[in-house]
């Protein structure tokens, strides 16, 4: 039990060890690293619980037929729009989006929509856009937004095309 725990967390333990070593070798860098990590862990713990509860609810309540109808193959522009809105309304960094995308794939959402969701989550989150306007100005924000939206769809189309030619292995059940 403890052994499996150690194995699962070995990467974390190694990095944690590096950080402790830094405390002795380069005290100021080590301290900053711990402070940044601490702040990030707190931030993560603040937004992850609702995301994972939503993920659980999605998994239990939305059946395969519904997901396929709204976001599956042939859901067309409506499915793309839905994926885009869901991604943009999210909170949290991109890595929190991957488990969500995993459930969507398992339930039969098309890869195109999954990657639009991922793209929207990464760059067009609404609170972040408002923040960007405040810090960097409207012109910068608007131009980057236009470019990024075009990029999101372009990348999603290319990836979907590739999946068709090289079918992806189904995501491992245990990860989801």
């Amino acid at each position, binding site marked *: 039990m403890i052994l499996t725990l150690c194995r699962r967390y070995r990467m974390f333990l190694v990095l944690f060890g590096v950080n402790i070593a*830094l405390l002795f070798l380069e005290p100021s860098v080590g301290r900053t690293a711990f402070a940044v990590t601490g702040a990030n862990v707190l931030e*993560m713990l603040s937004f992850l619980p609702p995301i994972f509860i939503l993920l659980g609810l999605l998994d239990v309540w939305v059946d395969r037929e519904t997901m396929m109808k709204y976001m599956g193959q042939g859901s067309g522009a409506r499915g793309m729009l839905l994926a885009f809105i869901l991604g943009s309304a999210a909170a949290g960094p991109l*890595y929190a989006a991957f488990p969500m995308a995993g459930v969507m794939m398992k339930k039969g959402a098309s890869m195109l929509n999954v990657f639009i969701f991922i793209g929207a989550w990464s760059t067009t989150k609404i609170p972040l856009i408002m923040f960007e306007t405040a810090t960097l100005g409207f012109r910068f924000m608007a131009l980057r937004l236009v470019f990024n939206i075009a990029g999101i769809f372009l990348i999603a189309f290319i990836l979907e095309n590739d999946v068709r030619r090289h079918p992806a292995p189904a995501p491992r059940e245990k990860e989801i």
Partner: protein
Amino acid sequence: MSTAALYLITALLLLCSFRKDRRKTRQALKKAWKSFENILPQFLSILVLIGIMLAVLDRETITRLLGAESGASGMAVAAVVGSVTLIPGFIAFPLAASLLSSGAGYGQTAMFLTTLMMVGLVTLPLETTFFGKRLAVMRNALAFLYAVISSVVLGVLL
């Protein structure tokens, strides 16, 4: 603010779910916990790695590397630093604003921000568990390519 909204929506949905079917709700919560516990090791590793990186590459170092007159080499540095690290938006935007005010070009700043948000080498192993290696690598490579092209164009336009 958005986190509060997220909690509110989640609480409402959870309440609806609970009133409709207790057993299913318990199942959903169990699934939520299991998914969370499954990727917790990777999340924690990512966070410690980001902490160390941000401590080494502090604001002054990044500003110096991307600062005034850094030109094409500044673009390259921005792309590399942005792709490796993964910094949450609420740190990234003020950092980008300070880059701009200390003389970095719009192109470098856009490159840094775009790769920061779309490309993540640190999170690639996590992404691979969900999409498979081919898709995860392709997505990052395409996002990187796109960030480079759009930032160069943006740098010329602004």
